[in-house]
C-alpha cells in the first residue's frame, strides 16, 4: 500500500512540475528571443539606434527608433503628471473617505474602467480630444494612456492603504492630525512601497500599451518631439512602432521592432529597479 502511494505522489509531482514548466517556457522563450534578436538589432545599428529615425524600408540601413523613444518618454512623463496624481489621490480618497457615497462611486468607476477595452478608451479620447483639436497628438495619447493606467494604480494604492493596520491611523487622529495629514504623513508614508508599486504599474502601462494610442497618437515616424509645442502634434511611441514595423515585410524594419522591444523591456525593468532602490520598505 505505502508503495503505490509513493508512486502516486511521485507521478503527481512530475505532472505538476511539467505543467509549471509548460507555463514558464513560453515566457523564457520570448525573453530569450527578445534578448537575442534585440541585441543583434541594436549592435548592428550602433548608438544611432537610440537617436536616428527609421531608415527607408528595404534599404540596407536600419536607422533607429529615436523619435518613438522620445515620444514614449513624453508619454511616460505626461502620464506621470496627469494620470499618477489623479490615480493616487483617487486611491487615497477611496480609503480615507470609505463609507461616503462619493468614495463608493469613485471606487466603482475605477474598477469598471478596468473592464473597458483599452481600444475603446482610445476611441473615447479620439472623440473628446482628437476630433475637437482636428488632429492626433502626443497629448491625446498621454490622456488615453493615463486613463488606461488609472484603474490599475488606483487599485494598487487602495490595497496598499487599506492593508495598513488601523491603529496607526488612530494614533495620527488621536494626536490631532487632520485627514490629509493622516493620509499623507501616516498612511502614504508607511505604505510607500505599495503606493510606489502602483505608480510603477501605471507608468509601465503608459510606456507599453499600444491600443489606446491607435486612435490618438497619429503617426510621425521621422519627427522628433523636442519642443512643448510638438506635444500638440502627432507623434510616435515605441509600442506603436513595434506594432506597425513588425508587420511589414521589410527585414530592416523587423529588426528595428526587435530592438525596440528589448529597449522597452529594459526601460520598464530600469524603472522597477530604481523604485525598489529609492523607496524604502517600512518594517512594521
Amino acid at each position, binding site marked *: 500500500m505505502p508503495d503505490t502511494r509513493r508512486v502516486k505522489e511521485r507521478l503527481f509531482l512530475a505532472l505538476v512540475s511539467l505543467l509549471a514548466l509548460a507555463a514558464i517556457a513560453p515566457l523564457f522563450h520570448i525573453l530569450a528571443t527578445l534578448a537575442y534578436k534585440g541585441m543583434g538589432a541594436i549592435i548592428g545599428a550602433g548608438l544611432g539606434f537610440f537617436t536616428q529615425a527609421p531608415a527607408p524600408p528595404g534599404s540596407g540601413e536600419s536607422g533607429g527608433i529615436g523619435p518613438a523613444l522620445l515620444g514614449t518618454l513624453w508619454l511616460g512623463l505626461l502620464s506621470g503628471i496627469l494620470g499618477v496624481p489623479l490615480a493616487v489621490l483617487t486611491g487615497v480618497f477611496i480609503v480615507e473617505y*470609505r*463609507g461616503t457615497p462619493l468614495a463608493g462611486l469613485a471606487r466603482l468607476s475605477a474598477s469598471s474602467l478596468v473592464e473597458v477595452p483599452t481600444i475603446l478608451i482610445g476611441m473615447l479620447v479620439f472623440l473628446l480630444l482628437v476630433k475637437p483639436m482636428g488632429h492626433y497628438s502626443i497629448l491625446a495619447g498621454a490622456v488615453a494612456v493615463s486613463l488606461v493606467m488609472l484603474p490599475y494604480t488606483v487599485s494598487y494604492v487602495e490595497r496598499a492603504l487599506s492593508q495598513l*493596520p488601523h*491603529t*496607526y*491611523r*488612530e*494614533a*495620527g*487622529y*488621536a*494626536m*490631532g*492630525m*487632520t485627514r490629509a*495629514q493622516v493620509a499623507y*504623513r*501616516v498612511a502614504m*508614508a*508607511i505604505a*510607500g512601497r505599495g503606493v510606489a508599486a502602483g505608480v510603477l504599474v501605471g507608468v509601465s502601462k503608459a510606456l507599453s500599451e499600444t491600443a489606446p494610442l491607435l486612435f490618438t497618437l497619429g503617426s510621425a515616424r521621422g519627427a522628433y518631439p523636442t519642443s512643448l509645442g510638438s506635444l500638440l502634434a502627432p507623434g510616435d511611441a515605441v509600442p506603436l512602432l513595434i506594432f506597425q514595423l513588425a508587420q511589414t515585410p521589410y527585414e530592416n524594419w523587423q529588426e528595428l521592432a526587435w530592438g525596440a522591444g528589448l529597449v522597452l523591456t529594459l526601460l520598464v525593468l530600469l524603472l522597477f529597479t530604481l523604485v525598489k532602490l529609492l523607496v524604502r520598505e*517600512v*518594517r*512594521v
Partner: protein
Amino acid sequence: MEPVEVVVRGLNVWINGRQILYNVELRALPGRITAVMGPSGSGKSTLLRTLNRLLDLIPGARAEGVVRIGPLDALKADPYHVRRLTGMVFQEPNPFPHMTIYDNVAIGPRLHRLAQSREELDDIVEWALRAAHLWDEVKHRLDEYPHQLSGGQRQRLSLARALALRPRVLLLDEPTANIDPASTEKIEQTISQYARENQATIILVTHSPVQARRLSHQLVLLQEGRIARRGPTAELLPNSETITAPELGRRLFYGLQDIT
C-alpha cells in the same frame, strides 16, 4: 496651562444601531487617575474613543449625551480641538514604523508648532522620553526605528509621543497589557508623575485590579455598557496586603452581582 476636568452625563453610544453604552455618568478631576474596569466587550474602549472623538472614525457610530472636556462641549466641538486637549495610548504599542524614535516624539510638536527652534524641539523630545522613562535606553539611538525596540520600549515610545503634546487629559487603553513587568512599572510611574506634576486628568482602562489599586483614585466599573459601580478606589478595592489579585477581581464582581 489650565487643568481640565472631564464630565460625562447621560452618554449613550450606538454602533450600527446596536447600543454599546447606556446612560454613562462620569467625572474625572485634574491631577487624579480614574480607572475604568469591566469585562471584555463592556464598552471601555468605546468610552475612551467617545471622549476624544475617535468614534467619528467608526462608520455607523453615534453618540448622544453630554461630554465636557474643560471648556469644550466635546460631542459638538471640532474634533481637532478636542484631540488637541487629549492624548491617547492604545493597547498595542503603535509608534509610527516609518519614523525614527526621535521623529515619533517630535511629530506632534512639529504639527502643532510647539517649538520655535531645533533646540526647543530637542528639549521637548528629551523631556517626553525622560517622562516616559525611556530616555536612558534610547538617548544614543534616537535615529533608529521602532522595530528595533522591545515591545515594552515601543509602548513607552507611544506614551512619550502622547506626552510630548502635554495633553491636559490622558486616555490610556490598557497600556500595559502584554507588556513586560519592568516596562509596566515604568509606565505606571510615568502615569502617576504626569498626573501629579501637570495636574493632568487621567482615565486608565485596565484589566488589572492590582494596577487600578496602585494608581487610581477613583474606579468605574462598566458592565454591558452600563456603569455598575463607581467610587473611590480605596473603598471598592480595599488595600489589604493579604488579598491576592484574583481574589480582588472576584470581590469586585461579587459586589456587582449584589447590585445588578
